[in-house]
């Protein structure tokens, strides 16, 4: 009962916050000039709702990898971290140029990296690849260093103008293509995770799957937003902040009493 109640409380809290901030936050990130009215509100929301979830999933995934040696868990954790931490680009600056160059580029690449890592993790999980003890630290460091290096390169590329434009007065065709590509990867990951959930019925898998579905919805709704404040933009906003809660619930459920696999 408690396991079901905790997420409900979380969802209600998030929705209540969104309603309170309704007047202060733009309805959809289509207009750079309204992003920071009031200052950094969007960045605060990202930091509050997404960063803790990404950090928690990455932490428990790393611990789980060091304990059980399943590289799939580490890759998925990195994927969620990339997805959630890339939204921190909203702190980059208040100018339209900063938003266009840093945030959009970083966010899009975060989503793409997130999708690639997550799908890789989910697919590897089907083979249950276990790294032996003593050989786990190197892959752990490699995944984080690789992720940080990729993020740094994207940031540098955005600053130096090496990467093509993803945002002008509205998202460019290229950004839509990147998002659709990421959405396809998330769809495959979601289908496989959903299938796994149906056979394992684990609460952790359940919330992971819900999180991935919310990410997928968030990406697709972003692509189809036409006017700030329209229902699709609201769906985008809600799903974006809710997926952090879903991933956090996956972590919270690991504190509980998951039933172990059976012996025969």
């Amino acid at each position, binding site marked *: 009962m408690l396991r079901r109640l905790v997420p409900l409380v979380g969802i209600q809290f998030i929705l209540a916050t969104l309603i309170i901030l309704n007047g202060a936050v733009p309805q959809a990130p289509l207009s750079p000039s309204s992003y920071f009215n009031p200052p950094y509100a969007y960045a605060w929301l990202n930091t509050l709702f997404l960063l803790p979830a990404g950090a928690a999933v990455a932490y428990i995934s790393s611990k789980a990898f060091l304990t*059980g040696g399943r590289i799939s868990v580490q890759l998925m954790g990195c994927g969620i971290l990339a997805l959630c931490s890339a939204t921190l680009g909203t702190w980059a600056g208040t100018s339209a140029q900063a938003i266009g160059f840093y945030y959009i580029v970083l966010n899009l690449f975060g989503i793409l990296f997130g999708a690639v890592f997550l799908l890789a993790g989910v697919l590897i999980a089907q083979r249950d690849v276990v790294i032996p003890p003593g050989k786990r630290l190197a892959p752990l460091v490699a995944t984080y260093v690789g992720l940080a290096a990729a993020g740094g390169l994207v940031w540098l590329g955005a600053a130096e103008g090496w990467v093509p434009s993803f945002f002008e007065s509205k998202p460019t065709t290229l950004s839509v293509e990147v998002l659709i590509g990421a959405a396809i990867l998330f769809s495959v990951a979601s289908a496989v995770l959903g299938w796994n959930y149906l056979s394992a019925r684990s609460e952790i898998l359940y919330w992971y799957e819900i999180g991935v579905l919310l990410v997928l919805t968030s990406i697709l709704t972003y692509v189809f937003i036409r006017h700030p404040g329209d229902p699709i933009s609201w769906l985008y906003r809600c799903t974006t902040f809710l997926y952090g809660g879903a991933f956090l619930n996956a972590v919270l459920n*690991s*504190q509980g009493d998951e039933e172990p696999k059976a012996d*025969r």
Partner: protein
Amino acid sequence: MTATRRIKTGIPELDEMLAGGFLERDAVMVAGTAGSGKTTLALQHLVNGATTYGENGIYVTFEQLPDQLYRDALSFGWDLKALEEQDKLRVVCTSPDLLLASGDGEENLLDPFIKEVRPRRIVIDSLSHLAMYVEDEKELRRETYRMLMYLKTKGLSSLLLFEAPQLMGSVGSITETGTSFLVDSIVMMKPVEIESSMRNALAILKMRGSSHDNRLREYEITSKGFKLGAPFKEFEGIMTGSARKTPRVEAAAGRFSEAFAIGGKGKRPHEE
């Protein structure tokens, strides 16, 4: 696929651990130290079978006189005499050598009782006493096998009580008895020391042909009988005799890792 019929113990938490109960006609070894509650568990299994599930039973004891058993059972509210009068139960007090001697081409000692009550369940209390009447381990295995085959052919699901000599430390003494491979399931009961106090732990060490809960759970003997409690989830190393608290983060990480241990084996403990 036909679902295998289960013999419920009538103790809900234990039946849950056993994915619904023991498999029909299985031979189950209940191993534990003296005073661990083996007899109580076995009696409750028989009484619940007779009163709740319509499955009559026989209790074969080598170590207690019937009056002693009636008195002990009555302290839990189980009137064995009344069940005997209703032909739902028989308490057979005999000597192991008589049981072993019977059955060689002649009627088995248990045949008349089986005819009388048409049982589905039987308890042998205990294998340890049986062992005293055979010359060596090889002979014990042969005699145990013969007895188990007899019980199975009669359609009986049996509980074989076994007194494990080792009080603390590992469970090696149970699995090394030489008879453990003959049985289909092993339920282990033992006192454990946790934070300087004695508690009781139960585990299903083996259950052939079925999934089961592999967690170690606490139990107590109450005035109403055997009561199974929660798993010892905060401790590890209990079976080795040196229990220590599992670090919370490590335990969570372990559960998180297990959740993704898919690899085509993502079945829940109680699924078949």
